[in-house]
């Protein structure tokens, strides 16, 4: 997606007469199959989620859910009493922390692979490995490594301990998420670096700048916009990540890593309190909506108007 940086050379001259040519035969029916699917599997369930969050739905009323008793905001009141506030805190802090740790790693990785050298292709491929591996594979591997008798404790010796339960599980989750997610920042930073023209470097070299001022004053400012956007997306992905904690710790997870998706899952498919769980899911959606709206504003969708007519 075209992100914050502008590309003036692409804002071609508008050709207003073009549009009229095809106006009469707009084949809007082509949107129908996708539209129907999105309505049936996304829009209807979204509405249904809100409805379920207002009724008392459990395993007894599930088969005839239309007749389940109406509760109003009862589920929301109950959800705020229970573990939800704790899991919001766990989710948000974990997501922000993971993003904060991945940014320097990802940017550093982009900087070391920007200049060509022999073997760079191999290094780039290696950097992509954590990103390429499916989450459930990554989680399975780390789960094995972090077992009480596992290899991590064997290395740590006296410093070892329980990683998959108790307070350290939180750090285990952060560690594994960081390991799996930093290449995303790397990719976005690399894409931004590659759009910086080489004249910029040459000009600063002529000025006699050494690498550190060149990096902090010339190169990094170019990365700020794209990396900020990547941070927003990465944080959203961390908050929504269900697979990693689910496979790493199993359900129900230890209290310290009961992130929002985990809580919603356990409440519906293990406690079978469907109404309550839907209320929690709606609350978590509202929390996610805040960064999401910031993101949607930042992305320039209107790029269509300029680029389509090049």
């Amino acid at each position, binding site marked *: *997606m075209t992100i914050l940086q502008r590309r003036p050379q692409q804002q071609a001259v508008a050709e207003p007469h073009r549009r009229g040519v095809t*106006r009469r035969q707009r084949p809007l029916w082509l949107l129908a199959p996708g539209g129907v*699917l999105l309505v049936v*599997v996304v829009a209807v369930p979204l509405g249904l989620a809100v409805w379920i969050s207002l009724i008392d739905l459990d395993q007894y009323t599930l088969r005839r859910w239309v007749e389940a008793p109406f509760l109003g905001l009862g589920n929301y009141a109950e959800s705020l009493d229970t573990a939800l506030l704790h899991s919001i805190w766990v989710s948000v802090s974990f997501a922000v922390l993971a993003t904060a740790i991945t940014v320097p790693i990802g940017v550093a990785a982009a900087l070391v692979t920007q200049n060509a050298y022999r073997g760079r292709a191999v290094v780039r491929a290696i950097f992509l490995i954590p990103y390429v591996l499916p989450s459930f594979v990554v989680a399975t591997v780390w789960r094995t490594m972090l077992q009480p008798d596992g290899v991590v404790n064997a290395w740590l010796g006296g410093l070892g301990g329980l990683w998959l339960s108790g307070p350290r599980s939180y750090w285990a989750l952060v560690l594994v998420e960081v390991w799996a997610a930093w290449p995303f920042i790397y990719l976005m930073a690399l894409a931004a670096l590659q759009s910086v023209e080489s004249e910029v470097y040459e000009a600063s070299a002529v000025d006699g700048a050494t690498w550190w001022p060149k990096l902090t004053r010339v190169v990094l400012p170019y990365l700020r916009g794209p990396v900020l956007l990547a941070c927003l997306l990465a944080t959203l992905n961390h908050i929504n990540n269900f697979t990693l904690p689910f496979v790493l710790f199993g359900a129900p997870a230890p209290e310290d890593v009961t992130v929002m998706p985990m809580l919603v899952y356990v409440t519906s498919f293990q406690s079978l309190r469907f109404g309550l769980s839907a209320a929690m899911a709606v609350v978590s959606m509202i929390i996610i909506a805040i960064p999401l709206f910031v993101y949607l504003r930042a992305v320039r969708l209107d790029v269509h108007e300029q680029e389509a007519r090049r």
Partner: protein
Amino acid sequence: MKADVTRLLPRPLLVIVTVLLCALVLTPVLYIVLASLNSDVGVASGEFWPGTLTLDSYTRIWTTAELSTGIVNSLIVCGVTAMASALLGTSSAYVLVRFSFLGRVSILRGLVGLQSIPGTLMLLPVFVLFSSAGTYLGLTVIGTRWGLFLAYLTFALPFSTWVMVTYLRSLPRELEEAARTEGASTTVILWRIVIPLSLPAIVVAGIFAFLLGWNDVLFASVLTRPETRTAAVALQVFGTAQEGGALPVYSQMMAAALICAAPVVLLYLLFQRYLVGGLTAGGVK
């Protein structure tokens, strides 16, 4: 010397950072490979370098875990999802890029926004809806591959469409306009011109849809029966089953994990150039 001018970091720093990052990535990766070649006892006792090298885990895994059924199910569901979502995504994107109509920008914004809806929010209502299809319409959806396919297709579609939108924008429209003046219909234009010209992007859109299904655990864990389980769920169930047992078969688990990762790694190796472009274009996994 142009290379020196554009060099970002001094050489020693570059080497140190590169080595550190590679070590960070490769240690766990090396661990999977070594552990899968180790004996179960060796892995359980925390060995990194195997005491005994053996391929036993790779032969035994097929009987201890339901891996083969899982892989077949995953291949079927994800393969069909990939093809369907690439085709639907292309036709939707074509309309979104080439024609102007009321609500187009809202749809574009929706395509980006939809990718961030948490799966856990959708899971329960989709489950209720699918089980209602059984209660009220007499259609069994839960536990079949169809239900899973429908869910994956829908969640893959916004991203596939978005990939195609970014690609079709850069495609010159002169060919289509020429065809249209010759009297070609939209269907013909799509089949004869747009699809052949945008094959690389279609492959990317399809692969991402495939990976979305392959990597999913959430929906597959609720919408499948043991016979229709995907590889991801088979591995997860296998992993959880190790906790209570007398001797956890960790080596076999690592072998199974490697086998589940293999198709994905293969796809990336084959299409690395296109996929990396698609990743940064879509901004999501």
